[in-house]
């Protein structure tokens, strides 16, 4: 863990370290943080432990400059949620914000300095059609016009093809569950929807909504705390690309830290993962947060997750791959071990997404289309 390649992890574990770094270490930290989109977050962490004045001014300056970007994202997302509420005012459906938009509108610590590029919402599957038409009527359109892409999303994925607003160009993902329907794990989205809690956002850009509209708009909700952590774990270890995903792990650590004061959070977490059938990704997430970021997780929680652990060699292999691939490395510094780890994790992520036959067909289709479109470019 003293490897400079893990500097970002060391600093997330102990932000005070930032005040003891020499110039080369600062440069390495900033590089890793830029690639992981965590520069603004580091600025907040430095501020929290009172060392923003004790770190090199050039580093502090870059952290504050990055904060301007995350502030802008927050403004944009607050306004987008406002507009989504307006668009769905006539539809009888709850709107559950997921990921970045949820952290932000719920006012969570993890939202500070976080970049949010698109808004993700979860709605009941039987409202999907109504929600989609209402959004289209209010200026969103599907970003995927290709029939294959449309079918790929609608038949196999857990979300509609991404939509973009024609004027604001913001991207919106409408989910009906949290994992591809073709994947190995299939949690029941009804459970998530039923436990979601309505929030009362205090966010400036969101509050710009006029009061008349507020009466008729759908309730803006976020997942219950345990579900939020489980969803982040699923997103990182089941659905997404692990390579370079320090930010995802830092999100999980920050959420766990915030919910830690609530005893019922820990009591509910593992039973909840069991009810959703998502113990394995939760195990990976918590074990990685403990090992790499020093997150404090009660012994009893890790013990109850014991049966969800993979067998020893797999567990070791996974821990090794994650540690190698998590912090992004520059292409100029060729590192065979890190690139092998990234490749292995990439293959794993696709393996988890769909059965082998379907994966082969999907990759074949993608390859054909790339080949066909080549002469045009």
């Amino acid at each position, binding site marked *: 863990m003293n490897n400079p390649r893990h500097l970002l992890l060391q600093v997330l574990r102990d932000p005070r370290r930032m005040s003891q770094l020499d110039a080369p270490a600062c440069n390495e930290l900033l590089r890793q943080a830029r690639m992981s989109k965590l520069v603004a977050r580091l600025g907040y962490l430095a501020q929290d432990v009172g060392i923003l004045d004790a770190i*090199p001014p*050039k580093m502090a300056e870059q952290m504050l400059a*990055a904060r301007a970007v995350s502030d*802008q994202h927050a403004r944009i997302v607050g306004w987008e949620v406002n507009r989504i509420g307006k668009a769905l005012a006539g539809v009888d459906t709850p709107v559950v914000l997921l990921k970045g938009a949820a952290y932000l509108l719920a006012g969570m610590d993890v939202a500070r300095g976080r970049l949010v590029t698109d808004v993700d919402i979860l709605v009941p599957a039987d409202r999907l059609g109504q929600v989609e038409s209402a959004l289209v009527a209010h200026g969103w359109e599907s970003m995927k016009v290709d029939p294959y892409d449309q079918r790929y999303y609608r038949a196999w994925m857990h979300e509609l093809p991404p939509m973009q607003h024609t004027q604001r160009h913001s991207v919106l993902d409408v989910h009906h569950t949290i994992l591809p329907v073709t994947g190995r794990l299939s949690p029941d989205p009804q459970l998530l929807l039923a436990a979601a809690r309505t929030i009362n956002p205090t966010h400036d850009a969101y509050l710009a909504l006029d009061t008349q509209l507020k009466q008729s708009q759908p309730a803006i909700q976020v997942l219950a705390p345990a579900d939020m952590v489980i969803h982040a774990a699923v997103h990182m270890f089941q659905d997404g690309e692990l390579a370079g995903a320090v930010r995802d792990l830092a999100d999980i650590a920050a959420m766990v830290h915030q919910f830690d004061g609530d005893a019922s959070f820990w009591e509910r977490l593992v039973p909840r993962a069991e009810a959703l059938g998502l113990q394995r990704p939760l195990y990976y997430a918590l074990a990685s947060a403990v090992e790499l970021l020093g997150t404090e997780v009660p012994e009893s929680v890790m013990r109850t997750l014991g049966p969800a652990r993979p067998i020893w060699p797999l567990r070791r292999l996974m821990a090794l791959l994650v540690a190698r691939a998590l912090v992004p490395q*520059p292409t100029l510094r060729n590192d065979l071990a890190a690139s092998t780890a990234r490749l292995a994790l990439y293959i794993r992520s696709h393996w988890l997404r769909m059965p082998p036959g379907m994966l082969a067909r999907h990759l074949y289709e993608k390859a054909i289309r790339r080949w066909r479109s080549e002469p045009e470019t």
Partner: protein
Amino acid sequence: MIVGDLSIDDWQHRMTRGVVVRIGPFTVRMTVRLREVADAMYLLYRDYPIQPEPIVLDFDVAALPISWWGRGPRMAALYFDGVRKFDPIEREQALPMFQWLLNWCIFTHPHQYLILHSAVVARDDMAAVLPGMPGAGKSTLCTALVHGGGWRLLSDEVALVTPSTGLITPAPLPIGLKEESIPVIAATYPHARMGPSVRGTRKGTVVHIATPASSMAAASEAGGGQAQPRWIIFPEYHAGARVQLEPAPRANAFMTIAADAFNYSLLGATGYETLANVVDACHCFNLQYSQLDDAIAVFDQLASQASSAASSSAGSLTGSPTGSGDAPHSTSRGRP
């Protein structure tokens, strides 16, 4: 130490391993393993200070050859933070593309400033902002003012405005000239050092001009050489036109500059307030010209009027609420 203090061999050697050059407030490590590009940069960056390492960097950029084992066209790749940026380029295009990469770094990162798209020149600490309408001859006029008019270059591309003070920080890069303006400048200002001309870029033939030592002196120190914006001038080159300076409506100036700025909306209310302060502090003009000497004379007249007005009654000419007089002169960077 400046680049010109090194021998060209020493510079070449250092460039292959990375050398930290200061560009205005920014520390930039450049690694260039393309001999002809390093050669050209020795000329273009002669008066830029070299920073001893280790130092905390703002940008880490590189231009490296791509090897196809000796086959195919000779290509090069650009890197930011050690990661390849943009598509590979033909090696002949590497010099202008590397200059563009440096510009891109400054366009997209330092949000401690309001970053406006405009050339900026200054006389003493009074700055003229020349917003960058393409084809208006901004770079040509800027070159003329710097090489023939005794103005110093703050930047050919960006005005970096500090929100808390309203002052503009210099970050000069070699000015890029294109097409027909190249022979004009070469003939009129033979003492201006020109890099090699590169044909077939997206903007046609391009040449870069070394930043003169007189512009570098103030910009070389961190936070040094800041200037108070006093004029916003929209230049417009018209072949055969007589020189003409007309007041421009401030609201229009504001909207035009805001629409073209790099991070105006990103900064939200801060962007609005900062730009409003800049426009309030400035006289706004449209300048039509065909002869560079005539245009320089207009600038000189503005500057002498301002200095004489300043000596009789401070700030009355600008009528500015944010004149340099009451603005705090410390920078947001908090460095000595």
